[in-house]
């Protein structure tokens, strides 16, 4: 993929969203099916978005992820998160890729032929997904054996590779030796559980993956052993938070637009007065607009600050996702209020927005945790302790 300026990237993402994602969004939700067409389209056009140019990618960063997420989230939150997880995964692989990994993963990703994803969460980690319990043992000099269970693997069973977090086990291994490994799909010992069925985000194909002593070459190790914490907080968290923020900003913006469109065309039957002329409605819509827009500014600000490595980056990223979760929730709710019975009806698109938006609070790091982290950062407290 050639270098493409950010503006062009945004335009391309909007075009794909409108032409491929939007027409299928309701169906994906209703049938709870993985959005194969939308992902194929995004992967082939923008799959190398965050792969550095030196590896043939487009070399973009957090801001592009947020903007692409907004464009896709507007049309279909499920597809947006599925593609967002690919972008996060490819950023992780690219962050410190070996020669083998460059050829095996980054090349195909940059060429739009490879879909990757994250398999980081585990059951019972209580949101502290960076402290995995999936074990990694050395088998001989050149092999690794992985045992454990990963939960909520987005794109589960559809991706070509999975970025997995592990902890070292065995005699004489140091405490807290967490590592990242990239796995190809369908290796012996990989077992997929039945799909998790959610309240919203129903096209995610979020599944549990059992790793029953899966053996892989040590070339699959990303970076060095023990780099997982670095990966999680320098790559996974920023990219994931921006992918999420973009996606749910898109949902909020879509709900706002849905409400505005509705208000523009509705009249009271008895008085003939247009809804758009009601001050109460105007006031509420004005609040909604400002909320969406200030959240967008925060997200963009967080992305640019984080890319530049400036102090505002970290609290910005944390706050962005916390803010977007609340914004999406409230704006969709306000839209439901404004659109009234039409919006509350079974076939209203606001249904999907409401269910999808609610996931923003649920997907770790949780909103409350993010707020605490912001506080910790501002008060110079250790992020992961206490």
């Amino acid at each position: 993929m050639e270098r493409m300026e950010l503006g062009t990237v945004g335009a391309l993402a909007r075009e794909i969203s409108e032409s491929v994602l939007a027409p299928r969004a309701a169906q994906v939700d209703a049938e709870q099916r993985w959005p194969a067409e939308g992902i194929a389209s995004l992967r082939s056009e923008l799959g190398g978005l965050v792969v550095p140019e030196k590896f043939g990618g487009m070399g973009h960063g957090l801001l592009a992820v947020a903007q692409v997420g907004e464009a896709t989230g507007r049309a279909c939150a499920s597809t947006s998160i599925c593609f967002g997880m690919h972008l996060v995964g490819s950023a992780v692989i690219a962050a410190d890729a070996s020669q083998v990994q460059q050829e095996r993963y980054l090349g195909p990703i940059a060429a739009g032929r490879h879909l990757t994803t994250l398999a980081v969460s585990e059951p019972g980690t209580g949101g502290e997904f960076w402290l995995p319990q999936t074990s990694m043992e050395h088998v001989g000099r050149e092999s690794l054996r992985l045992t454990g269970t990963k939960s909520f693997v987005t794109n589960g069973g559809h991706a070509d590779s999975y970025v997995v977090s592990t902890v070292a086990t065995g005699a004489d291994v140091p405490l807290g030796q967490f590592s990242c490994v990239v796995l190809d799909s369908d290796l012996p010992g990989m077992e997929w559980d039945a799909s998790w069925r959610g309240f919203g985000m129903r096209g995610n194909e979020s599944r549990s993956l059992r790793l029953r002593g899966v053996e892989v070459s040590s070339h699959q190790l990303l970076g060095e052993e023990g780099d997982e914490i670095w990966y999680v907080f320098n790559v996974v968290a920023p990219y994931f938070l921006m992918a999420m923020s973009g996606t749910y900003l898109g949902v909020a913006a879509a709900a706002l637009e849905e409400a505005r469109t509705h208000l523009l065309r509705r009249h009271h039957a008895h008085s003939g007065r247009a809804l758009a002329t009601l001050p109460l409605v105007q006031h509420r819509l004005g609040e909604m607009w400002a909320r969406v827009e200030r959240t967008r500014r925060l997200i963009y600000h967080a992305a640019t600050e984080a890319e530049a490595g400036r102090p505002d980056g970290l609290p910005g990223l944390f706050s962005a996702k916390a803010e977007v979760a609340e914004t999406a929730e409230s704006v969709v709710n306000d839209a439901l209020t404004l659109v009234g019975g039409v919006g509350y009806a079974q076939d209203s698109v606001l249904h999907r927005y409401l269910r999808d938006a609610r996931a923003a609070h649920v997907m770790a790091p949780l909103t409350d945790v993010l707020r605490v982290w912001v506080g910790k950062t501002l008060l110079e407290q250790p992020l992961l302790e206490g």
Partner: protein
Amino acid sequence: MSSAPPRILLVGVTAEVVAAVHAGFAPEADLVEVTAEEVLARTDDPARRRRPTVVVIGPVSPDPVGLIHTLRPNGVDLAAIVMATAATEAKLATLPLLFSGEQVRQVSATAADQVPATAHQLLEAMARQEQLTAVRAVAQRQLAAGPAISRQVGEQLFGEFLTQAPVGAVMLDDTGGLAAWNHKAADILGLTEPDSLGLQLTALFPPPTLPRLRRHLDLRADSDAVFERAHPDGTPQTLRLAPQQVSDAQGVERTLVVVEDVTDRVRAQRELAERTSHALLSADVAAAMTAPGSVSQHLQRCTRSLVDHLGVSCARIWTTQHRGDLLGLAARAGTDHDEPPTQVSLGESVVGRIAAQRRPAVEYTPPGRAGDPAALFTGYPLVFKDELMGVLGLTTHHALPASTRVALTGIADLIAVGLQQDRLLQRLSTTAATLQHSLLPPALPELDRVALAARYLPGDDAIEAGGDWYEVLDLDPDHVALIVGDVVGQGAAAAAIMGQLRSALAAHLLQGQAPARALEHLNRFTKRIPGAMASTVTVAVLNTGTGALRWACAGHPPPLVIGPDGQPGYLEDGRGPCLGVSERLPFREGHTRVAPASYLLLCSDGLFERRGEVIDDGLDRLAAISTELCPDLPALIADQLIERMLAGYHRTDDVALVVGRLLPSPLQLTVPARATELAGIRRQVRTWSERDGLPDELVDDLVQCIVEAVANCIEHAYPDGPGDIEIELSYNADGQVSARVTDFGRWRPATAGMGYRGHGLTLIHNLNDHAHIDTTSAGTTVRLQLTPRRGGRQVPNQQSPPSTPRAVPSGTPPPAPRTPRPGPR
């Protein structure tokens, strides 16, 4: 994980409890029985890093609730088990509201056997908690230790358009490190992220450049400063760096450096400037070597150009002398500390070695003596076709660039060629004159009735034979042809054509063809000679006896006639086209009769034509000046005409000129030797001589001499009776009047000193330049020659007649003295 074993502190317990705990824990935990007062001291560790401790508060403990509140078990390293009795049960009921199960557990006082298991659970929970805490600490340390990723922020700093701009931009932080760049800068400088972030901009340039670069970045004086470096792929680059102080949104001062890759442009500019300079130098040198003037002026100009164009401190040229074994300093320009010898032998010093080896050489003179800077002498042999012409030497303070050295070999060749040409030119101009004159008639015929002069002048700059020619042909005793022609072109080819035309025309005329007819034949002939087309010629055939003149012109200026009365007139008839142009256009012939003593003048246009002047004006000038010069000897007229017509005019064309004068016919009288004849003789001589407009005094002299000579004959040759006396008067070609008086008698024997009438003879001697008396048995002949002296001018000596008086019998021309050939000017 704590390395120390866990503790179990027993407060107010019964022996039964102690036993149960001992049975369950020893020796894996320290079991200590303490009082309620002691337990605080043991658990209140100021280091706050306690080993996992479980406090068992037994049934005999007086205030278990107060103790727990005092202990504040946290479930991390301190937990408590309270044994509830009937008395304390109610008070303990609030504890589960305040403490979690991992902090405080209740066991019935009657179930002492449950205490060890409960303690085990608490210790395990605390161990897990401790491990998690440790892992979090490790994770936190790893998080804190890992390097942060920051992408280059060009887009945010520069905006989307500058990011995509075709000019490079980099932002420097306050240490000079790279903080951001745009796409073009990344391409130019080979920047990658994150490796290049924070890298010093100066680290991208080679060390010798650094002082200048640092100054440039600090002072930001010259926005056009360029710096050279090698791109990571090895290609050399020339970059223009334009630093500028800017402040960002936070008001932080940053340095924005615009980076432009000017490698190609600078290279092209340098090459162009160099080529231009070299081309100008070459042109200058070429112009210098071919300019008018002497060779030393040429060389002087060359050295001046070298100094001016190349900025060398000194330029010198030595040329070969003495058959090439010496080199003499011929020109120099610029200043030099050295004063080299003006003459160098071959092989001696660097100049001589360059000449001897015919190879360029460089000689380095280290700085020294009175602070003279180091000097580099670069010398080139001047060689043309294996012939050494000299040496070119340049003194510089820096080595000359390779391209300049290459250009200089070309310059040396130019100078060598110029020197060679100069030598050639000198030879050529000599050769050309020789060739030209070999093609012109070696001498003019000596004619009784026509006085002649002819001149040929090459052009002022001529190095080749010109195309003008003349001819005078003695056709028969009565006819003479005067011809002037002009062949197109110059040089050997023109000379050859000239020779052919001249021969052909002579052949036709000698066959007796009239001028127009001869030109018709010549016209056809001309068409066969490549390159002869458009040649011009004028032919005039004069009957020397009658003065009848026939002429024809082929595109050539007409003859000019100046009559005895001094009236000039061009012969306007007889015009025809240039030769070889057409066979259809006829050649016309003009005819007229010229009076004796008339002048006939034929010339080529070089004599009267001037750039920027109408031809008729030139012809008028020619006629006017000619008139002023007449009458005079044709030779004098020719010289004066050339001098006056061409005075002060730089002539590129050559000139051919023929001046002829129809002399009056001779006077031949045979009279009886009687005194009575004298009056008639006197009259006839006077009439004949006056016809030519001879000056009165000369006429008087002539008449007196003749009368005297006749009187002598009467007196001495025929004392016994009258015989005949022959008198002949004529002009010769030199304008002299010859007189002959012949008798056929026998003079009295001569007496010493009085063999002749003294008075008469003295007179004759006085009046005549030459007088000669020849006495034989058959008679006596007196010959006289009188030279007219006009206008105070003296006849030049070399054109004086021979010193011996000559008899000039009519009909048979005497051997002609050769007319001295005028040499080239």
